[in-house]
């Protein structure tokens, strides 16, 4: 007897049937591929078994996987002997594995989905909700400088704190602990709301801030803190509904409505967001407290949040004591720009994932990933510039000074997006210097004119872009 030729397929019928089925199904999901055989006369009992267990056999990673599957289908060594004349299941599985070709060229539908437009834009807007602080500044014109500084400081602290809480929760969600994440969000939000109320009370006592200044500031802060759980847990639509009264209030104050109405609107939103936060963070089990390690990981996020908050607040509000409306408009532009930024970030993520799914090695990755990053940042600058142009033309054409403020917003936007990229990579090593630079810049902000500030913001954007490129150019940063 001669050895079988390598070119002869020992199981032509069954093999061809499966191969044809794969080709027909092209790249559709496995398991739904109908394997049809016309020439059934040549099939033996093992072929028939292969056909009846086509999904198991065609997707098995090796013969032992088929043994495991056969056992759960009720086949035993006895069945292998009695029905198929083979010594045991292991031999039967080997036979099935040989007869059925792998369907490995038919991958699961893994290509990442393009970002969902509405949700993404909404998230972006909500992420930028802290810029609502702008509304507060509008009502502050009568307050003293010290009061304003104290209120702004509380808000910046809250921005950083919110970043920290969000990071802690995301880390726990990442390891599948939904309840543990809820616990962080719930406790974190409750403590923050209590502390903030206390601080506002203190400011009231120390500086005798008028209630019509402190109350809206407090409710804006309340909204921003209570929004964190909804954003982390994906309750964007409910949060958007909670934001509606504040949005209406902002619109009314833009149109020259009463500050009392604005204050009431923001307060209503704060209450609704708090109720939402409490509802979605209800705990089903008791879970473990925060570890020191978790807190240490969150520290850079808190710092960079502080830095960003300080930068935005000081650049847009610091030097504009007497120019409430223009600063507010620039803040709104930046808010909307961050909505667009979320979109650009998703686009970038989508492109990188698609790239990783097709390239066979890491060689070309850094260059292409950096190109995607550059495109995202340029788009961010362009979309902010477009928004700024519209806002300037609509509201502040008569105020030449306002131009500088809009420039600041345009220069800040790509830097904020770059910071987002760095942060979401969890690149702790990159975060520390970023946070430190942001803080240094924030400290240098006062006393400068708007053009100089815009230049500083642009410089920071370039610097952050470089850091973001470093943080994202390794494929491993996208695991």
């Amino acid at each position, binding site marked *: 007897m001669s050895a079988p030729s390598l070119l002869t397929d020992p199981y032509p019928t069954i093999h061809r049937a499966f191969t044809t089925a794969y080709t027909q199904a092209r790249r559709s999901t496995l398991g739904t591929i109908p394997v049809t055989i016309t020439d059934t006369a040549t099939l033996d009992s093992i072929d028939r078994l292969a056909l009846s267990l086509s999904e198991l056999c065609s997707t098995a*990673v090796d013969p032992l996987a088929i043994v495991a599957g056969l056992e759960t289908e009720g086949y035993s*060594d006895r069945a292998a002997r009695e029905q198929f004349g083979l010594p045991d299941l292991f031999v039967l599985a080997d036979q099935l594995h040989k007869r059925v070709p792998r369907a*490995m*060229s038919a991958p699961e539908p893994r290509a990442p989905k393009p970002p969902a437009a509405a949700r993404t834009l909404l998230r972006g807007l909500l992420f930028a909700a802290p810029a609502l602080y702008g509304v507060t500044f509008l009502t502050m014109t009568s307050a003293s400088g010290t009061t304003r500084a104290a209120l702004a400081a509380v808000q910046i602290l809250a921005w950083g704190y919110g970043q920290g809480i969000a990071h802690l929760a995301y880390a726990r969600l990442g390891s599948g602990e939904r309840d*543990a994440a809820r616990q962080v969000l719930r406790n974190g939000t409750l403590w923050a709301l209590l502390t903030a109320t206390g601080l506002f009370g203190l400011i009231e006592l120390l500086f005798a801030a008028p209630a019509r200044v402190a109350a809206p500031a407090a409710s804006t802060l309340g909204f921003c803190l209570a929004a964190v759980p909804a954003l982390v847990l994906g309750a964007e639509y409910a949060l958007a509904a909670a934001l509606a009264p504040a949005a209406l209030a902002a619109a009314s104050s833009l149109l020259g409505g009463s500050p009392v109405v604005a204050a009431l609107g923001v307060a209503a939103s704060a209450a609704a967001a708090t109720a939402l936060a409490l509802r979605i963070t209800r705990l089903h089990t008791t879970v473990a407290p925060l570890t020191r390690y978790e807190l240490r990981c969150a520290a850079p996020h808190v710092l960079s949040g502080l830095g960003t908050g300080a930068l935005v607040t000081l650049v847009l509000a610091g030097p504009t004591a007497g120019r409430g409306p223009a600063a507010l408009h620039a803040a709104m532009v930046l808010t909307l720009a961050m909505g667009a930024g979320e979109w650009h970030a998703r686009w970038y993520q989508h492109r990188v994932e698609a790239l990783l799914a097709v390239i066979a*090695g890491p060689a070309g990755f850094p260059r292409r990933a950096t190109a995607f990053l550059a495109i995202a940042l340029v788009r961010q600058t362009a979309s902010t510039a477009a928004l700024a142009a519209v806002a300037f033309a609509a509201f502040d054409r008569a105020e030449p000074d306002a131009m500088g403020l809009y420039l600041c917003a345009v220069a800040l936007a790509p830097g904020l997006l770059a910071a987002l990229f760095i942060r979401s990579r969890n690149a702790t090593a990159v975060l520390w210097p970023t946070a430190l630079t942001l803080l240094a810049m924030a400290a240098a902000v006062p006393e400068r004119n708007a053009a100089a500030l815009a230049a500083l913001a642009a410089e920071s954007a370039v610097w952050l872009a470089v850091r973001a490129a470093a943080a994202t150019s*390794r*494929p491993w940063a996208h695991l």
Partner: protein
Amino acid sequence: MDVMLVTEGTYPHAHGGVSVWCDQMIRGLTGYRFHLVALSATGREPAVFDLPRNVASLHTVPVWANSHAAASRAPRVRSVRWCAAAIDMLEAVFSSDSAAPDSFEAALFELYLLAQSGHLVETLHTDAVAVALAELWSGYHDHTAPALPLADAMTALNLIEHALRPLSFQPPVAEVVHAVSNGLAVLVGLAAKWNHGTPLLLAEHGVYLRERYLALRNERLSWPVKSIVAAFTRRLCEAGYRAADLITPCNEYNQRWERRLGADPAKLRTVYNGVDPRRFHPSDTEPETPTIVFVGRIDPLKDVITLIRSFAIVREQLPGARLRIFGTAPKGGEAYFRECVELVGQLGLEESVIFEGQCADTRQAYVAGQIVVLSSISEGLPFTVLEAMACGRPNVGTEVGGVGEAIGDTGLIVPPRRPGELAQACLALLTDHERRRTLGKAARRRALELFTIEHAVATFDTIYRDLALPPAAAAAPFGVAA
């Protein structure tokens, strides 16, 4: 005497047969001090068992959460040696050479040294290792498979990195390491062997690799990633069987897999699980309506769907019959539970199929029916069957794992996933009082003879002593030889 008991995802953090078994053993073996090493997902899971007093220490090793030992860092200086260790390990995973198991263990030892100095992540998350993996994988599939996408290489290496996390744990000193499953738990045993030459006892309830294959089928991973993870797990399990000084499967059936994966038949010894015959004692009375009892998790592995379908057939013959299901869905498995409830609705069995939830006194559940049914598609040596036997109730079970071995001739065995055959077996017993009585008595006798806690505890007492002796004969630590 100090025993290190290594668990993965079970005792003391989760309910289930393996956890109950660990608790029983520790409580029974009062003369030993246990050092519990629990591999868990995050290390933050609360314990669901009160630890017995002879547990001297509890060490939790997180496999999935970020931790100090494996914190993700930006690349710093990398040593060529690190990559080489990872690549050697992968070569051994995909090699069909007869020396591959040895090379795999040698590479694991190198990785252990790296893990101990906190470099596991940096070692595996490396471009060079990803490139090597892609080449090896292609060769493994005779260069017929499409090139491995970078995303798949990275995902697979990440999963392997997490699987190797137990290597970064410094095991406590003990005289015997008792791993309650193969796989990740064995890494701790290997570390103890390399460090102190501690003998390793591998006690398996299911077959680790077999269960991983079944789990992988349902995981949302691409085919290449599944194939890589399966190949790695297979080598790891082989390493476990080879390194073990004694392997104690809880049934004969599992030995087929263990031998296939390189276990030395001379080191295999079946030790049956045991139940407390005083707690589970027979009842003379039966309920008036014909009642089938199921006790267990409502889980796809228990195939409750087939049970419900078969009960519909039983009802056609015995319209008054009832099916009482004692147990709840595991966390995250509520969808399957809903599927079962919907099926009951579709079949119009709402009145006769009762979901009883968790039963505080399991004995009451067993004696609430004439017969106890287990419809599983995969089992080790299930406590449900043994407890029902101790209660003098005949079982109808599926021919999976050690179920047939446990029941012997004291009940009926049918193939899994066959509602018709399951129904016929149930009807045969439900309609024959005398046969039920005879089988029930035989079941109790068999349980007392083979499946008592005392028996299991005494066996492990002997095994621990034998393994710990003689200390002089212990193997020289691996890789430390002159």
